[in-house]
């Protein structure tokens, strides 16, 4: 009939393709989507993150069938799932292990982006969506952790929501609005349940979709940081590219198998992970009248928790001094309006650091450490993308940054002492300096020549 859309496929596929871009989507994103052929171990974690997201959603659906979001019944409903729901213990352990493994996978995924410059132009938007996903993930984990209604759940939520009361002027009212009550209570549990089960998962799914769409628009980066689309064959296919399907679909299946071994070993033999994945204190039902001796967030928040605790009144002097130095640096290096705006803003910050309570700045430091990530594409001025072609001392700096992050994490699990506090403060400065001084250090040093074609060793 005239006006019908002509498609190459026939039969049922043809019928669908005239009404829905199925074959064109499969071709455009799988069998004719070209990815660099030199992906290495670091490139598994994106697909693993997607797998863990799906796993969390599916196990979450089954948990919600039996969980009761009521302060009186929550704790026991979790035990009901563990004991009476057939396979309930397995689903619960997959969900709790999945939560921690989600962060392992996402942190490693971010390491890849940092070392290979995957956030650089034209991939800044992929990175921005990604940091948005990271923020949503942190919120999702925080809201989800209240649900078992154990001692750690309750008091962790109490501490973190109280942080919002440190915001000048609106703080105390804001904290009550978040909680729905004067203290963490049944009202808080119900709304955190809604956030955890629907609100944030919807946002997460949207951001993940946007993340992948943005990625497919420009194509993946690779360990050499080379643009594979610069050299194409006579059919328009990148010389250093291979179709995502079947090469990376089968590659990622292998990666998934390896990940599943580690994941299931934990689920079946060490679901508590020594008290780090399932905290022992959380097996005591929440008691608003009994504060635990040692309140600490789950391990994946501990680096940022360290930064929060490190920001004492004394430390704000150091931060204020750094802001003044920053004002000097921006005055010297910026041009035009920025030459006035940045130093002024930084001087105002330096003053406010001493005027507003250190508790508020602790919250700013903790949140700022994550928000800072959004700006990395504009802080990194290096002429090459990948760490492979950077000066050797850059590699040391990256190593120090990653080791520092792990140390901050360890310090966050420990009770505060004077020595640990000092180490946390130094660690916070290292973290902030690594990013904020990037405009200066990323242009220094002798760079190695970047090859024309990717470095690929035949399998």
């Amino acid at each position: 009939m005239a006006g019908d859309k002509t498609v190459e496929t026939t039969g049922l596929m043809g019928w669908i393709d005239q009404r829905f871009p199925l074959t064109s989507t499969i071709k455009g994103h799988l069998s004719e989507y070209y990815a660099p052929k030199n992906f290495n171990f670091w490139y598994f974690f994106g697909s693993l993150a997607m797998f863990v997201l799906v796993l969390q959603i599916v196990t979450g659906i089954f948990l919600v069938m039996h969980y009761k979001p009521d302060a009186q019944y929550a704790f026991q409903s979790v035990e009901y799932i563990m004991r009476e729901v057939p396979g309930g213990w397995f689903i619960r352990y997959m969900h709790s292990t999945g939560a921690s493994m989600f962060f392992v996978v996402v942190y490693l995924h971010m390491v890849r982006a940092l070392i290979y410059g995957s956030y650089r132009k034209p991939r800044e938007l992929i990175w921005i969506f990604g940091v948005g996903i990271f923020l949503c993930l942190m919120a999702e984990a925080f809201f989800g952790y209240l649900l078992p209604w154990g001692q750690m759940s309750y008091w962790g939520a109490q501490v973190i929501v109280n942080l919002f009361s440190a915001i000048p002027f609106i703080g105390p009212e804001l904290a009550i609005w978040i909680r729905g009550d004067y203290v963490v209570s049944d009202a808080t549990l119900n709304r955190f349940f809604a956030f955890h089960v629907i609100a944030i998962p919807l946002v997460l799914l949207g951001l993940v979709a946007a993340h992948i769409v943005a990625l497919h628009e420009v194509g993946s980066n690779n360990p050499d940081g080379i643009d594979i689309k610069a050299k194409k064959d006579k059919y328009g296919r990148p010389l250093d590219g291979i179709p995502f399907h079947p090469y990376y679909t089968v590659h990622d299946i292998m990666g998934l198998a390896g990940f599943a071994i580690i994941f299931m070993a934990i689920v079946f033999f060490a679901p508590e992970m020594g008290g780090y994945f399932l905290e022992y204190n959380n097996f005591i039902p929440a008691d608003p009248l009994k504060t635990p001796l040692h309140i600490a967030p789950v391990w994946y928040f501990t680096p940022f928790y360290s930064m929060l605790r490190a920001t004492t009144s004394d430390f704000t002097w150091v931060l204020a001094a750094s802001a003044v130095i920053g004002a000097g640096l921006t005055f010297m290096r910026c041009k035009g309006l920025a030459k006035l705006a940045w130093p002024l803003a930084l001087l105002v910050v330096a003053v406010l650091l001493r005027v507003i309570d250190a508790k508020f700045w602790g919250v700013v430091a903790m949140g700022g450490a994550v928000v800072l990530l959004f700006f990395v594409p504009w802080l990194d001025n290096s002429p090459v993308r990948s760490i492979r072609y950077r000066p050797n001392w850059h590699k040391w700096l990256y190593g120090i940054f990653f080791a520092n992050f792990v140390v901050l994490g360890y310090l966050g699990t420990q009770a505060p002492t004077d020595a640990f506090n000092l180490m946390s403060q130094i660690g916070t400065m290292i973290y902030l300096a690594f990013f904020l001084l990037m405009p200066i250090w990323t242009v220094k040093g002798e760079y190695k020549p970047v090859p024309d074609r990717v470095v690929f060793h035949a399998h």
Partner: protein
Amino acid sequence: MLIKKLLSVIALAVACVTAQAAGGDYALEKAPNRLTNQAALQNGAKMFVNYCLNCHAATSMRYNKLRDIGLTDTQIKDNLLFSGEKVGDLMKVAMTSVDAKTWFGAPPPDLSVIARAKATINGPSGADYIYTYLRTYYRDTTKPTGWNNLAFPNAGMPHVLWERQGPREYTSVVVHEVEKDGKKSWERVTKVYGPQGYWTATTEPLVDYTGKATSGHGFKALDKARATAYDSDIADLTAFLTWMSEPAQLLRKQIGVWVLLFLGIFFVVAWRLNASYWKHVK
């Protein structure tokens, strides 16, 4: 003569020395692992229902879950149900939280997941705590219940199992520094708590002492047969409480072996399949 007697007392019993002064953390003993011993678990269930379930509840645990440790419904009904419960009921108790607080100072905690709650990171497990706690009671007339405990000092819980353990003598030896008239000196304080809870203390000054503050504890069972049988009973009870904290643990480890075996084979297949595709890529 006195020294010899003290040394023999301590030699006879369990001693632990910590670097802190008396009243600090007591070093918990390792609980024997009887989780795979069904007879032990059943004995532990019997101990639990007969001695603990009057004050403590286990509201996440159903009586018929005991089928998993080899008991039949008839056995449960005949031996473990006392006040009109049905075999499918949860292990609740009649005492309310308010009454409990009035009578004991704090409501006895629910024991459904007690072995998981008492565990420590990089430290003794919950089972170790329970095993030690139930065996380190000593008579102390200065306490309202007449009992005190080394693992949980000033516990509000009386020694419910005192008859099974039999009479014991408890000796505490503390070496610490004291200040008298502005001068610091070391002394050793030995306190012996008799089976009636009255204690005698002897203090001896230590001249030229160069060590650190220490504290030692020793129990002497006056009815050794009863105390040894008691230790085994408590090991059974601990095993039961550990099992009850996660009844699925035995099954999950069994299934886990098969799952990892399968995944191992799956990984090898996936790896070789991947290699077969990639060998064409130059």
